[in-house]
């Protein structure tokens, strides 16, 4: 969907406002004609900032889950969830920030590599438990999964080698049933 691009461009860094927080919002939406556009359009029309957005099928074949990481102060986030709830095609909106949740993100990074740098890159991959999914004389493509922080960290480590291309899925998340790590 071309929408995410346009929306992500709207994110103005803005002044480091104390009240602005990052929220992970999980949305169950019916697979109806134009439903995703409705959600994307809402963020664009109201000028809300989105950090990432991911969509995929769920256990219910008529319903998809959208995970949106959005930024705003309490009042804006409250408006976002209320406005989402007004959309007829939406089944459920949960602001996971108020819950305990597990989240993952996947990234594919194609990084420039030479005979000299390849071992070093492989070592970083190992530390992050990333997989090598493609290799060429001049590049290595890694796949890493983890929390957003972990993905941020591996990208930071790979940056000095020159990242040629990168694709991140954006965060997906589910509420925890029990407290504590598994």
């Amino acid at each position, binding site marked *: 969907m071309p929408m995410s691009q346009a929306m992500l461009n709207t994110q103005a860094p803005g002044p480091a406002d104390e009240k602005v927080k990052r929220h992970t919002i999980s949305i169950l939406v019916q697979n109806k004609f*134009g439903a995703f556009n409705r959600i994307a*359009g*809402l963020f664009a*029309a109201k000028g809300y900032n989105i950090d990432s957005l991911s969509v995929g099928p769920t256990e219910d074949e008529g319903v998809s889950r959208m995970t949106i990481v959005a930024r705003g102060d309490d009042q804006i986030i*409250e408006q976002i969830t209320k406005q989402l*709830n007004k959309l*007829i095609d939406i*089944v459920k909106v949960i602001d996971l920030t108020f819950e305990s949740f597990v989240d993952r993100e996947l990234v594919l990074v194609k990084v420039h590599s030479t005979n000299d740098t390849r071992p070093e890159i492989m070592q970083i991959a190992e530390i992050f438990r990333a997989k090598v999914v493609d290799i060429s004389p001049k590049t290595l493509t890694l796949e890493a999964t983890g929390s957003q922080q972990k993905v941020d960290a591996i990208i930071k480590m790979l940056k000095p080698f020159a990242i040629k291309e990168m694709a991140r899925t954006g965060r997906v998340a589910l509420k925890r049933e029990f407290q504590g790590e598994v």
Partner: protein
Amino acid sequence: MSRQAHEEESPAAPAGRLMTGAEIFVRSLIAENVEVLFGYPGGATIGVYDALHDISDINHVLTRHEQGATHAAEGYAKATGKPGVVLVTSGPGATNTVTGIADAMMDSIPLVVFTGQVPLRLIGNDAFQEADIVGITRPVTKHNYLVRDVRELAQTIKEAFYIALSGRPGPVLIDLPKDVMAQKTTFDYPGSVTLRNYAPILDGNLRQIRKAAEVINAASRPVLYVGGGAILSNAAPELTALARKLRCPVTTTLHGLGSFPENDPLAMGMLGMHGTWYSNMAVHFCDVLIAVGARFDDRVTGNVDAFAAEAKKIHIDIDPSAISKNVKVDVPIVGDVKRVLAALQDLVNPLETKDWLRTIDAWKDEHPLRYRNGEEIRAQYVIQKLGEITEGNAIVVTDVGQHQMWAAQFFNFAHPRTHITSGGLGTMGFSLPAAMGAVFGRRDLPVISISGDGGFQMNSQEMATIVQHRLPLKIFVINNGFLGMVRQWQELFWRRRYSQVELANPDFVRLAEAYGCTAFRATRTSEVEDVLRKAMAHTDGPVFAEFVVAKEDNVYPMIPAGQTINEMIDTPDPVPGGRNGSGDAIATVEKGKARKVSVHAHVPSNA
């Protein structure tokens, strides 16, 4: 289509057999008790129009522009409380409805708009008269649909009517591809709707209602701030009962006008940018503000941080997203105004507000709505006289601009659903078609359209529709030769640099006559009452009247956009018997006092 095929598909056929989408459309509207359909045909809807041909249950009104059709549907909906229904063709027919749909969205008006569409297989091909109307209207509809299979049609129509009318009302659009409307299936109109996450909350949370009652019972300077939601929920009786029990003064928004009788001693008229001096003062100094179906619009609040800053705020609204959107409130209650007010009534006690009401009365004396009358007609006088002649028993449909504000200030509205205007979008050209739509829904009261000379010309083509149907509509144009409201801003805030606001107008009386309408004109104050009385007494179809008024008059009081009552500007015209009583003829209208000094004769200014 062959003659035989036509007979086979005749809508008179019994249920249970196969019907085309077009027939199902007609049957569904009949099942929804649609009496009037405003529309305009074209290639993509020709089959649907064929199915309408022999139907007598639905009165199709051929407007002269699709924008006229949507505004007519809005006027019909506002006057009756029933959804307004529109049928137009694809492409330009559909795009012409967008302004009316956006207007209905802003003002919470229930509409169901049907648009023709190119056949499914051509969608996306830049086919002749194709427009992605579902995409275009997504942000300005409560919901919209593209019907992709005739078997979904009846269910979709059922859902659309339910969504448009329930909760916070709004426009719903259904796009009808031409081939889908020719497909056949059996017709079975669903009896109910199930939507997974859409279930408007009507009964307010009892704990919240109790909390509100506690806050109210401790108030000494309460104000009821009432909006369009009170009228949408038909809550005027509950509101009046509550205000009188509490002895609480009432101010209304532009859309709340008519929810509370303005001759009641507790009435303060409209608040906000062009609200009365005293209502804005009262809201500023109140200790408890009870917002009833009002959405804290910026035309009302001005600077939100200073709006009723000291007051505890209670907010009753059916739409959770309306609450704490602009102004943080202390006691939110999500629910239907009518039910919540009824529940509150038993939990609150009469309040000791004598001192508070006395303070407000003093503001009323010091700063009444007023104007200086002379030979040149003041628009305020036309409106005030109209209010007196009709005694408030009329439906007044205004356009956008200065005349709109004067109508809100000087008519003295007494009944719900008697004031119809475009508030949220502020759409010039709204009045004439909306008033026409109101007449189709209401024949118990005279319907009066009031436009400016600018706005009248934005949908004047509907004069043809009005004359064709011999509608008993009163069509008044307040002609100041200017786009008056913009001129006022240029005068006050842009050093009187008048940029593109002066109008070279046609002869409105001859224009109306060319359409076949009886027409009058008043150019001096002394002629106004006579013209108004003749127009109101006219029984044979529509009647038009032009009032040539002062060119450079301003609407006061005024709180400039985004400011506070400290910047409120009162009218420069003196207060009668006040400090600089000059002996001029000053007319005042005070809310809640029924004391009026109206002047008929011209009094020379050196008298």
